[in-house]
């Protein structure tokens, strides 16, 4: 939001004489800036591109060629890697998708509800509750994970996805609550007060007025929850130990142990496969993503 309103201060859109003069003077530094940026971007993306090309060349060529040109196309790493573990890689993708779906739904429902209460309702101990919510953002997961493990083990949830999903349904990703509170505060109160006058209760105001206006914040939450859950290794490693239930990161780790000596190509191939969903989310969601991350940094 803030970035859009402030975009008008961009010098190129400002009327007046100054920009023309400056433009002329700045040409040379700009060429240098482009050269620098392209260099940085190439260095940044090189390892990724090398991983993709390595997954497409024969094993004996992988480490002899630092370049990105492929002499012999070898597509066999993909089917090989796909079938290298006890189950086809697709089933791990499906497991991860299930965890991600549960986490996204959980975060969307519970965090938006909490955010509505914090942003719009007056209740006792609100300040204390809000401070507690903010503090939990900073709490390292390590302090909680051992008792959580014991607790989930006692109720028989180890080797199910419940320990990964239920906490999201209970708004423990306080970062998103905070993000949404900030967003709701930016929605004019007049809108919900008008709905009030028309006789709407809080449930209707939340569902029919606030939620539809929160779409950018909800999209940001969806995208970040997707990516973070997809990448999450620590809690999936701890709570899921049955190989049939492995999610992508844990399966990939298993894969290193199984393959590391010989078949690097297959390892690269499945690494690439595991990154494709994140890459796609990035591609389609980056507008929201960049705006979302930018608003969190605002003062």
């Amino acid at each position: 939001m803030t970035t859009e309103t402030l975009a008008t201060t961009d010098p190129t859109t400002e009327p007046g004489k100054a920009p023309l003069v400056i433009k002329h003077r700045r040409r040379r530094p700009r060429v240098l800036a482009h050269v620098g940026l392209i260099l940085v971007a190439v260095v940044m993306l090189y390892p990724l591109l090398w991983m993709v090309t390595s997954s497409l060349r024969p094993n004996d060529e992988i480490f002899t060629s630092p370049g990105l040109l492929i002499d012999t196309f070898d597509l066999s790493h993909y089917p090989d890697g796909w079938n290298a573990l006890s189950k086809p890689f697709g089933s791990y993708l499906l497991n991860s998708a299930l965890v991600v779906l549960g986490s996204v739904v959980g975060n969307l429902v519970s965090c938006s509800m909490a955010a509505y209460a914090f942003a719009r309702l007056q209740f006792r101990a609100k300040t204390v509750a809000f401070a507690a919510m903010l503090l939990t953002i900073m709490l390292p997961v390590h302090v909680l994970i051992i008792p959580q493990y014991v607790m989930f083990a006692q109720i028989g949830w180890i080797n199910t996805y419940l320990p990964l999903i239920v906490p999201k349904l209970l708004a423990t990703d306080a970062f998103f609550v905070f993000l949404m509170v900030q967003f709701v505060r930016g929605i004019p109160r007049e809108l919900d007060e008008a709905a009030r006058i028309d006789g709407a209760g809080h449930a209707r105001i939340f569902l029919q007025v606030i939620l539809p206006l929160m779409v950018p914040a909800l999209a940001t939450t969806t995208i970040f929850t997707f990516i973070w859950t997809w990448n999450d290794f620590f809690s999936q490693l701890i709570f899921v130990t049955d190989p049939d239930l492995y999610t992508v990161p844990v399966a990939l780790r298993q894969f290193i142990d199984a393959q590391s000596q010989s078949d690097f190509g297959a390892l690269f191939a499945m690494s690439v496969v595991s990154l494709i969903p994140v890459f796609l989310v990035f591609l389609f969601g980056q507008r929201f993503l960049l705006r979302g991350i930018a608003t969190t940094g605002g003062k």
Partner: protein
Amino acid sequence: MSAIGELRTLSRSGRGSLTADQKAALKKERSRDSKAAAVFLAPWLLGLVGITIGPMLASLYLAFTDYNLLQDPNFVGLENIQRMVGDERLGKSLAATLTYVVVSVPIQLAVALGLALLLDRGIRGLALYRSMLYLPSLLGASVAIAVLWRLVFGGEGLVNAFLGLFGIQGPAWVAEPDTALGTLIVLHVWTFGAPMVIFLAGLRQIPRQYYDAASTDGANKWQQLRKITLPLLSPIIFFNLVLGLIGSFQSFTQAFIVSNGSGGPADSTLFFSLYLYQEGFAGFRMGYASALAWLLLIIIGAFTALNFWASKYWVFYDD
């Protein structure tokens, strides 16, 4: 603004007295709000108590026990803390973690800030550059990238293939105690895109007029950076610094994958959370691991507090 809204403002301002009817309406509104809040906050409250505060207290208790998952925990007093004092691996773990945090966070922020400044000058293709530089931050935490790093910095990996072009025989970076941690630092710096995007947003909020005024007064680019950009950006630098420190103290995946779960070679990549995992979930010393978790919390808390204290001297708030 609606009638209720006006009443609220009136009562909050403390000015003017409300009639009995108005007070009653306000009271009704408050009880309505409280009931709604109970419903809307129910999931969060349940999570706070059941998934956060409860386990936190349990973890504090376990830190003073010898719990091993199989038998009931015995209270052992300060035994775990005494054990920490004599724990050589803990020392190495602290050294590796602190080195990683203290070296990689400032470098990452400096790179992020430098590129944000470069991108902020209304450069053509901004969106494309920004996306390309941001992408690694999203992938960086994944197992796949950690695998990639292990192979890129392996004895016959990409880095040494490159050095080979110049006739240099590089070491097996990830297998040498002197360089293994360095490869993880490089990986962390590589994910500078996220703070960079936050810096970019902050730079946009600085009014252009300040720079126009400064250049009219003859201030050069360097002076403008030091006197305008950095002070006005300091709250954002602070924000990124605090987040970066908290996050990197908890790093796990990269070290786990690169060292195959061992924290090696010679414990040089034994990050704190990796050591905690080894003790708790591989060695079943849950009591000791809980004590370690609290040590981590205290260290992160101390660093964050130090940061907030130091921020008085360099963070500039204009409002």
